[in-house]
Structure formats: structure tokens, C-alpha cells
């Protein structure tokens, strides 16, 4: 069964990632972030999203990749999954494309240093463009954070 998916494309380091558009609430420019103490280091803090306090995480940090510098292209993508709203800091967000669910392949164990469980699959677009589809519920899995905290203590 093939299905048309609308996907927001964003970049971290040199990779391109995709999130289904209906899970994205808004894309914002970088804004002041208030640090929240005693949280894992990839959680950058909270922002004021038009009156609502939303936590923000650095996706690279979440995947244990080196974090990149903030530039004028840096964006915060706010997603809503499982009644949680979280912002992702990404290097750029530049495109919305339609893809066919058929072209999404199951991911190999590790893609660009990210464990397969965080991914829904990999979409091959055109000749040599790869789009990494994120599994948001796994990325926002809280039990893992709890484990991380225990490791840090």
C-alpha cells in the first residue's frame, strides 16, 4: 500500500532528515532559551512559544553526535507527539516535499551514527539524496532520559 506523505526536510551536519508534516506544529527562528538545571546536556532549556513554555533539545546532542554551531540558518522545529510538545534545534529547515511511503526502506543498524531505533526508515529521493525519517516517539522516549540521568549521577 503506497501512501503520499508530506515531509518537512531539515538538515543536521551534512545529513538530511524528515518529519511528517502533521506532527510539526511550527518552525521558529532561533530565540532566547532559558536553561533548565539538572537536565541531560542535550536539553537546551525552555522557550516561550507564544505564551506556552516549550522544552527545546538539540537533536545532534540527543543522538550523541557533536553539536553544531548556531548560525542564521538554525531553526527550532516544534513537534507535538503523544501530547508532548518539544522543540528540536536543527541546522536548517528548508523544504517540504511529497514522498511515497513505498520508497522508505527499513534502516540499517546505524545511520550516520544514529541508532536504528530512532529511525522510521530511509527514503531515497532522486539519484543520490537520502532522507532519514525520524521515529519521534522513540526520540522523545522519556524512560531513556531517566536512564541517562541515573548514569550521570
Amino acid at each position: 500500500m503506497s501512501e503520499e506523505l508530506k515531509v518537512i526536510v531539515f538538515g543536521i551536519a551534512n545529513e538530511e532528515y524528515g518529519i511528517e508534516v502533521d506532527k510539526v506544529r511550527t518552525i521558529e527562528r532561533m530565540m532566547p532559551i532559558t536553561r533548565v538545571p539538572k537536565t541531560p546536556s542535550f536539553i537546551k532549556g525552555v522557550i516561550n512559544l507564544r505564551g506556552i513554555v516549550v522544552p527545546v533539545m538539540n537533536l545532534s546532542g540527543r543522538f550523541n553526535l557533536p553539536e553544531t554551531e548556531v548560525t542564521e540558518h538554525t531553526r527550532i522545529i516544534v513537534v507535538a507527539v503523544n501530547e508532548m510538545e518539544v522543540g528540536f534545534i536543527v541546522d536548517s529547515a528548508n523544504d517540504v516535499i511529497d514522498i511515497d511511503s513505498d520508497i522508505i526502506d527499513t534502516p540499517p543498524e546505524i545511520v550516520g551514527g544514529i541508532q536504528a531505533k530512532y529511525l522510521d526508515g530511509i527514503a531515497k529521493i532522486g539519484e543520490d539524496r537520502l532522507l532519514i525519517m525520524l521515529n519521534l516517539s522513540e526520540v522523545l522516549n522519556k524512560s531513556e532520559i531517566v536512564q541517562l540521568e541515573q548514569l550521570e549521577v
Partner: protein
Amino acid sequence: MDMNAYLSMFIDESNDHLQALNDNLMRLESSPEDISIVQDIFRSAHTLKGMSATMGFEDLASLTHEMENVLDLVRNDKLKMDSFIFDTLFQGLDALESMVEDVVQGGTGKSDVTHIVNNLANIVKGDYKNSSTEPAASASTTAAGQENGGLLDQYQSSVLKQSIQSGLQVFYIKVTLTESCVLKAARSYMVFDVLENTGEVIKSEPSVEDLEQEKFDRSFTVFTISSVSPEELTSKINSISEIETVEVLPLDEESLATLSSAGTQAAAAVEAPAAPAKTEKAEVKSADEQKKPAVKAPVANRTIRVDIDRLDALMNLFSEMLIDRVRLEQLASEVKRQDLTDTVEHMARVSSDLQNIVLKLRMVPVDTVFNRFPRMIRDLAKSLDKKIDLIITGADTELDRTVIDEIGDPLVHLLRNSVDHGIETVAERVAAGKSETGTVHLRAFHSGNHVFIEVEEDGKGINAKKVLEKAISKGVVKPEDAGKLSIDEINNLIFSAGFSTADVISDISGRGVGLDVVRTKITSLGGNVTVTSVEGKGTKFSVQLPLTLSIISAMLIKLGDEKYAIPLSSIVETAIIQRSSILMVHGNPMIKFRNAVIPLISLSKLFESPSYSEEHEEEHEIIVIHKGDKWAAVVIDEFIGQSEIVLKTLGKYLTNISGVSGATILGDGQVALIVDPNALIK
């Protein structure tokens, strides 16, 4: 007709009436001679009956009807209230409450209440004293109905007799509707309307209820006292459409006597089948009676009911505006244009008035929770065979709706505890040289940003020694720490989790059953509960609750370039201290404050502040905070000032961050975290 639209109104009003019934019955129990209270009760019951019948809740209506019958007798001085009647009425009330509750839950309000109905019917017949414990079979009820099946009972005939003696006209009216009549109930109502406009309806056959529900064939008869001539009455009734015949017979004393004594003969004249037992007690629904509520009822509050969600939405929108206001104030102070500053100041004043109103909208008097307690205490005292006075003060104290909704259960728990385990039995009290009747005080009062609710009784108090033994054996307290605890600290151990077991009941005055649940609940509301007790004298539970959960006053502070808010309610004092005055006790920094030595907490260390450390300062700004009666000093970088802040959560992703209770949005649009002082003091 779609009744759903009226259902919520029905539920709200039924609850009001049930509460009124409850309150008035309690009042009546303390002063049984006061007939005016009976009138109030009767009125509530009557309205309730009408409403339930309209909504089609038959069981509710019929039970209320039976209760009304009893009350009617009491009202007319034909029955003296006694404890059996009170108990039966209370039972009836409970049944009504559970039926309404069932309706609230989406049920049909059906319930088997034959037992109570029979008891009520027995009371009406006056033979409950003989067979009060045995629910009378319905057959005997019917039999009794036939025995005195006369058309008029003693009371009604005496009323009619007096009217005739005082020169008024009494008529026996028989109305027959046309065969094609569709709205029989409506037509009969119109007839009653005419009669009540010209006089008073003493009795109708079938009863008004049956007429309203069209439980009659085509004709009905009415006894009425009237001021107009028979001809006029006939023509007035005839002017109502779909009436076939009207017979108006003037009655004199003689014919009246025949009617009331020879019931069978008169009954033959009535076409309608003899009504079941309940019509034996006629429904006295005089015009006078119907006017009374309008005159006597207190002027109704001009209120509307609003969905709580709308209030919440209003509150949210308002908090958005509050943030913009602070932002505007900041901008205006930067721009420094007089007219802008003036406008912003005016807006600030208006919005702070608005804030008060919005906050007040959500405030509900604690009475809405307290009003069920007198009844509860009465029942408890009765079942435990104790004598207890419940004295409620400050029932008009207002609290946020959210808090009110949650506080009921913990208070029930505390009160039950006081009655069950605090107050002694009569014999024990006398032996201890106390008055027979124990007193439970339930107080509510404002203090600062908090509302306090206290439950105090003059019972036997907490046996601190046994609490301590129990606490040690349960592992709540280490034996080596036991000696350091003060009496109050020991007493407060009863709130500890793991302290609640069944065998505690017999062991130490029963305290501690589920009290940890009470504390958890109250803490989750941002409140606190403590206990003080003097053995042999009594115990006092004190519950501290925040006034509102959405807007609080806070002190804004800085740690380097980070801003934090500390709730003003937990701040004792702000001060500046010299570094040299810091004492080290077991390696922990402490300072002297008001003749006490209190711990000094470094907020920058705790929050791992990247841009500030007080290490190299000679002087420290400190904020002294308290949790209950424990104090601590918090070192900060700089005070910004006091401000009203709107509480926001950190969202579902970030939960349980130690030391942070939430966030707020400052005037410049930035998020500041709210420090949780309770987490700072261990």
C-alpha cells in the same frame, strides 16, 4: 422534547434542593418545634418532586412525594417529629442523593426504595410505632387506604367546615373533558388555574399528580373554597375549551358531613377509579401555599452558571494579556514618552482590577465543601454512640475552584479521624472529667496568600510515646534519631507513608490510617498539613492551602544572567550578610538568623549556574525561605523585585525537575524558572 438540554440544569438544581433539604432537616432536628423550617423543607421537596416528574425520573418523584406526605402532616401539626421519622427522612434523602448521582453518571435514576417508601407510608398512617422495623407489605398499605377511603380526610373536612362557618362558599365541582381532548393534563391545569384565582383548592380526585400525568379518564372532581358565585365559576370553567360538562354544587355543613363520613356513597359519584394508597392523603395545594414561596423565599442571587472550562479559557487569555502588560510597561519606560507612559499606567490599573475579578470568578466559598459535614458528623456520632457538636466557622472563606474540588476527601478523612479516634465515648469523657459532648471545630480563615483549614477536637489527643514506638518498629524513624525529635515532630510522624496499618487502630488511638494519603493530596495542591496535640486535651490538624493556583506573587532574582522567581509566600526575609559571618557546622555552611542557626544554600551551586558564583564575594544577598517552621537561607546574585507571575508548567516532556516547580514568562518574553523552596529545605 429533548430533555438533555435541561438535564444539567436539573442536576444543579436538584443538588441545591437536596442540600437545602439536608441543612433544613439538620436545623429541624435541633429545633423540632419550628414549623417554619418544615415549610422550607416542604417547599424544597415539592420543587424537587415537580422537577423530577417533569424530567421523567419517576422513582425520584415518587420517593419525594412520600416524604412530602410526611412533611405535610408535620406541617399541619398532625404529626410530631421523632427520631424514627428523622432517620427515615434522612434515609430518604440519601436515597434521593444516590439517585441524582446516578442521573449525573448518565443513569436513569432508578433505585429500589420500597423499604423507605413503606416506612414513610407507615409514618403517614401513624402505625409505624407498632411495626416500625418491619417494612409493611404493600397489601396492608392498600388495605389501610380503603379503610379511611372517605373522600375527605378529617383535616380537609374541618377546613371546609370552618370556611362555611366563616361565610365562604364551598363547592364540589365535577369537570368532564370532551372525548377528543388531547392535552388532558393541560386542560385540568387550566381548570385548577381558574379555581386558584378565585379561591383555594382543598382536594381533588384524582390527585393533582395523577392529573398532571394524565392518569385519569375524562373527568375529575374538586373541592374548592371560592369567593365567586357558582354561576360565575361555571362560566369561567366553561370558557376553557374542550370541556364537556361542569357541575358546580354548593356545599353546606350537612352535605359536607355526609361526604366525609359516608365515603363509599360519595365515591360512587366519582367516575375515576379509586386511586392507590398514596392518594388517601390528599395533596393540599392551596393558592396560598403557592404564593408563599415567592414571598418568603430569600431574594434569589442574580447568578448564572458558567462552564468551568470557559472560566479556565478566560484565565488563560488573561494571563497572556498580563505578560503583554508587563512587556508594555518595560517598553514604555524605555521609550520615555509621557502620553505612552500614562496610557500604559492606566492599562495596568485596569488590568489589575480585571485580574482581581477574573481570580474572584474562580473563587468558591468553602461552604460548598463544608455543608455536607454536619450531616456526616451527625451520622458518625450516632453510629459510634458518641455525643458530638460540630462548630463550623469561616464557611464563607473563599478558595480557588480547583482547590475546592480536591479538598473534600482529605477533610472528610481528617474529620472522620477526629470523630472516630479523637473524641472519646460519653463514659470515657465523664471519667476524664470532661463534658459529655465532645466538640469538633472546623475553621477556615485567610492568612496572607493562604487559606487555613483547621480541624480541632477536644478528645484524648495523640499518645506521642506510642507513635514513636510504632514509627521505630515500622522503620519510619531510626532508633538513634528518636531522642532528637520534639513532641510536634513525633506527632507529625503519623503522616508518614508506611505508618498506616490496620493494627495501629487498636494500638494507638487509631491515628495514622491513611493520613499519608491526606498529606500527599494536600501537598499536591501546593499546601501543607500539620498536627499539634496535647495528650488528654485534644488534637488540631491544620491544613494550609494556596489561595489560587494560577497567579502568584514572587520575588524575581538573578544568578548571573539567568533569572528565577521565588514564590513570595515562602519568603521570610531578604538580607545581606558578610562572608565572614558564615559558620561551618559539620562541613555545612550555616548562618545565624533571629537567634537560630539555619543552613545556607548556594543556589548557583545547586543549579550549576554557568555565569555566577558567590565564591569571591565579600557580601552575599540572601533570601530566607521557610517550609513549615523550618528555615533556610538561599544565596543569590541580585534582587530584581517583586512581581505578579503567571504559573506555567514546563510541559509534559520535562517533569520532576528537582528544585524547579514550574516556569513563568517575564515581561521581556523570556522564560524564568520558578524555584521550588520546598525542595531546597530537606
